[in-house]
């Protein structure tokens, strides 16, 4: 498997507080890697750091993606290299239509992508990307947006949170499509999604405390067997 993402010794501090410590992470092409951890473990911060979001500059380590040092590369240049992020809570915009948003950087038909997340294109393409959309609709549109980009690596931050039960299967299909077209770093609390990954890591208190086969990492997380916190931090969330 060709190495696509290589993160070594990554550290991040925000407001004088260490958020990520010495994080190592590697992903190959075609790989679906799941990131587990309790709320506040640093999962989303790691995603923002990789993507280069405002306010998330690493203070240690290095990140290499598709042969490029990410270093100080701004967010949009990382996006142009093929990195994409589906936010846990996607932004809303006044006056911006779903069609216009999905068309930005699109490499495939946005209407098809909407259909694949279960949203009829004729109904949703003309709509505004504002607060008239429910949280679940907005998240599905975000996922369609990532599909339209055809990224080399899709970072999906809790893509099924807030999505109705009936649509979960569609989202699982989308994740597999993104994996087939590139690679996926998936942050989730859904055990069934995590179990279908190729590999997994568990974050606790900003450190990777366990990595390997998903079943083993899930079991470790559920058993609260984290050696770093003796299960106390991991225990904030009973199961992935």
């Amino acid at each position, binding site marked *: 498997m060709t190495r696509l993402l290589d993160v070594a010794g990554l550290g991040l501090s925000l407001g004088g507080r260490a958020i990520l410590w010495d994080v190592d992470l590697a992903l190959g092409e075609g790989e679906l890697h799941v990131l587990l951890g309790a709320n506040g473990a640093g999962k989303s911060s790691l995603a923002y750091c990789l993507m280069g979001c405002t306010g998330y500059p690493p203070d240690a380590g290095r990140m290499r993606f598709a042969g490029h040092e990410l270093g100080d590369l701004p967010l949009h240049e990382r996006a142009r290299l093929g990195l994409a*992020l589906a936010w846990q809570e996607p932004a809303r915009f006044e006056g911006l239509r779903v069609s216009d948003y999905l068309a930005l950087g699109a490499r495939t038909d946005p209407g098809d992508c909407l259909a694949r997340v279960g949203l009829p294109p004729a109904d949703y393409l003309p709509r505004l990307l504002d607060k008239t959309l429910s949280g679940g609709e907005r998240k599905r549109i975000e996922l369609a947006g990532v599909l339209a980009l055809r990224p080399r690596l899709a970072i999906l931050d809790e893509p099924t949170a807030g999505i109705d039960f009936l649509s979960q299967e569609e989202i699982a299909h989308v994740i597999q499509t993104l994996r087939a077209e590139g690679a996926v770093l998936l942050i989730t609390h859904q055990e069934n999604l995590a179990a279908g990954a190729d590999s997994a890591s568990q974050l606790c208190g900003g450190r990777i405390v366990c990595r390997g086969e998903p079943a083993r990492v899930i079991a470790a997380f559920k058993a609260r067997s984290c050696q770093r916190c003796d299960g106390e931090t991991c225990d904030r969330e009973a199961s992935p």
Partner: protein
Amino acid sequence: MPDLHDLYAAFRQIGEDPAPILAPDTAHLVAQGQRLVSRQSIPGVRIEAESGEAGILARVEVAAGLVIPRPVHLCFGIFEPCGDQNVALVISLGPASRAEFWSHCLFTLPERARHAMDARVDLLPGARLDYREAHYHGLSGGIEVVARARVRVGEGARYRADFTLVQGRVGRLDLDYEVEVGTRASAELLSKVYGRMTDEIAIREGVRLNGEGARGLVKTRVAVEDEAQARIIGATYGNAAGARGHVDCLEIVRDRAVASAVPEVRVSHPQAKVTHEAAIGSVDERQVDALMARGLSPAEAVDRIVLGMLG
């Protein structure tokens, strides 16, 4: 008529076709500077107008029960390097009538000009009026717009006004709208303005919810950059049982621009309710990040957000 040539040229400059405005089945009023250029009544819509040294005096009346299929067009402009335009306009909608008015204010050519509008609008019971006013200015920064409107919305009537000045430089804008809303009537005021360089923007929009069950919304969207200044007052007064009002002001500030928002909310009846929200600041970082994640540069992302808000 040479003035109509100027009008055509001005519309072409902003990428619009004036032909539908001057069509025989469409009511219109066209004024250039202090001169009346053209007016056209249609059955049920009577337009009277005269021009003198003081400017244009115009009255538009829509007959009771009439639903106008096409908008009434009002075109105001100055097509010379400098000039003044004073307009006193009275609009009256008969009971249960419905109309849409499009006011085109074309000041793309002058280096220095002043457009003063004093409007009185009267909606009789059950009438509905959508009033769209779009300003097109050039880049001189020498345009001054002083617009006053006093609007009465009768029982069960509905008034919606939409003011936009987002193309070219504002220059100096002084907008003052006051709306009285009657029983079970509603009023919505929306303003969108984009100020640049040394533009000065002052907007005061007030809604008095005087009738039982009256509804009011004052929504303002302003972006200022460079050294532009904006001062916004959105006022709503709940004076009757069941009256509901909301003031919503959003201002984006960039560079050395300065903006202020003063929501003025007063309730004088225990069963009335008025709410307000105001946000002033730079562009939301999360929105910028979200657009950059789709490949837009930071500047492109900010432009997209600002234009979306003002679009």
